[in-house]
């Protein structure tokens, strides 16, 4: 039994480490060029945002249309902490996430008392309020024209791309691991119970408001981290980061990947980020792709790619012998037929 637990931890662990290390090395060796590296890294940020939206919408079951607001708070937060307060970058990234989480806590109080549509609209309203405030606090945020951030990952030209990749994809893997640990526990079950049936959850000892708040705060923390990683990656942020469009982009990853599936939203984020790049030649027609995908998914496959299931590396590993047998069996058959 103990071996099984160890094995179940080892397989995804190894996959996670490989995902961080192997491409990083390839980037450093220039096997993967700078452009592709940037796309992968950006997809990583989008994946973290997708996870944030998934936590609040898919797992906690509360539709939030303002997660980009927390991302912006994290982004501006990391700039202020590093540039103005001279805190080292690594620490300020975590602190910025905590700042976003704190605002999530404040905003959660009025918001989570509401249901369904109203909750969605209020989160949208808060996202807009954050954007308006960021635009108008010119002294701190640099106003609508945005703010430069000099402490970037890419200050070092030789290692820059690799550092960005490792920092962001590494954070992504870490977030996935910790989140899965949290969800596959009694706390995770409590949050899922709230999503499934509030009255039954309440009657069985799970404080509904408390666990909605837990989900909301975790989601805002993750969004804040996404923003806090985005700022040193890109080096320049604008209040537009908090816009509704940005929140919707993250929502699209989750809808496509499957509400409630963390791995699903990560995969969708990578696929769609790549798609946006590949389709650059379509110019402004590109902007139609996302919403059209959204409608098609809603009409024909509302549960998205993975529904509420997670991609299980353990199951993949176990399936390899069977797959191998199939392939070799087919090859043998072709050979005998050819004769």
């Amino acid at each position, binding site marked *: 039994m103990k071996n099984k637990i160890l094995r179940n931890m080892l397989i995804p662990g190894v996959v996670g480490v490989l995902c961080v290390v192997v491409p990083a090395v390839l980037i450093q060796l220039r096997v993967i060029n700078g452009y592709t590296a940037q796309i992968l890294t950006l997809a990583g940020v989008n994946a973290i945002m997708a996870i944030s939206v998934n936590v609040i919408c898919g797992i906690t079951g509360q539709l939030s249309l303002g997660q980009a607001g927390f991302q912006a708070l994290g982004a501006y937060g990391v700039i202020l902490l590093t540039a103005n307060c001279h805190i080292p970058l690594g620490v300020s990234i975590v602190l910025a996430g905590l700042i976003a989480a704190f605002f999530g806590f404040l905003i959660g109080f009025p918001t989570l008392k509401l249901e369904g549509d109203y909750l969605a609209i209020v989160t949208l309203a808060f996202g807009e309020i954050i954007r308006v405030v960021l635009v108008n606090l010119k002294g701190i945020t640099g106003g609508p024209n945005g703010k430069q951030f000099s402490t970037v990952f890419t200050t070092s030209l030789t290692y820059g791309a690799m550092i960005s990749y490792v920092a962001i994809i590494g954070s992504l893997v870490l977030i996935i691991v*910790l989140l899965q*640990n*949290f969800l596959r*526990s*009694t*706390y995770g*079950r*409590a949050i*899922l*119970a709230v999503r*499934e*049936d509030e*009255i*039954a*959850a*309440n*009657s*069985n*000892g*799970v*404080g*509904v408001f408390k666990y909605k708040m837990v989900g909301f705060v975790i989601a805002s923390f993750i969004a804040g981290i996404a923003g806090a990683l985005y700022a040193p990656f890109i080096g320049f942020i604008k209040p537009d980061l908090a816009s509704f469009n940005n929140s919707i982009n993250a929502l699209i990853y989750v809808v496509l990947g499957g509400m409630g599936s963390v791995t699903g939203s990560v995969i969708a984020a990578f696929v769609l980020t790549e798609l946006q790049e590949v389709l650059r030649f379509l110019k402004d027609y590109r902007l139609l792709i996302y919403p059209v995908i959204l409608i098609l998914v809603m009409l024909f496959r509302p549960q998205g790619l993975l529904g*509420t299931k997670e991609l299980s590396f353990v199951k993949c590993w176990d399936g390899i012998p069977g797959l191998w047998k199939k392939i070799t069996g087919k090859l043998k058959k072709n050979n005998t037929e050819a004769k």
Partner: protein
Amino acid sequence: MEKEDDLVLRAKDISIVFGGLKAVTDFSLDLHEGELVGLIGPNGAGKTTIFNMLSGIYKPTDGVVTFCGRDDKIRVINKKSPAELNKLGIARTFQNIRLFGSLTVGDNVKIALHQSRNVSSFDVLFRTFKFRKDENLMTEKTEHLLEIFHILDKKNELARNLPYGEQRKLEIVRALASNPKLLLLDEPAAGMNEQETVELMELIRFIRKEFNLTILLIEHDMHLVMGICERLMVLDYGRVIASGLPNEIQSNPAVIKAYLGSDYEKMVSDSTEGSSGAKEGGAE
């Protein structure tokens, strides 16, 4: 407050008003430890509304409810939330099954064990030894309970895929998992056939003894009600119209008038062969 003999729950003249309509008027009930009491009456009489008041989903507009919790402290529980009441020792099932459909049978039960958890967020995030111990304990308790109700083999099935009768049983298992002192069962036998109902009656008797429960149940199935309830309260239009032993209720003209249900005819013909006569419709 001092503990009054073995009183578990006392509802004193509780009423509730919904936008001008008084759904329940002056309902009073004393539940003593270990009792198995039935709440019956025609549809719409207010039985589930009373359950909702006792379990914290509705707050009574009048009257007082006091409960003696697991910690032997007596409290007024009018304003407490369902989660707080669950922690104090009240658990319930629902008229329309409310399971956590897309979660497994095992997880449904484990959720009720959440409030007795022994881990912090740190333990959970970093999968400490304490976490594993707690999880194993929860799994053990869950399997033990599922075994009693003969649905252990379905542990990893999704709750919504279970047949109806087993879903009802699962709801009871889940309620038991929160270690209650008072169990409220809302139509536990609904949709069950005769064989399943007999089995359920056995199970209810068993869990009452095994888990030291006080049980209040709502039911329309007269066989179950007459079979296991020690006393009954009859509700009609939000008021208690009769209360007492099952035999007395059977022959109570007010109750007969309020429509005991189509089972009545069968019961009358059954009991004419038995000892307690129910023929004379005289005054109480």
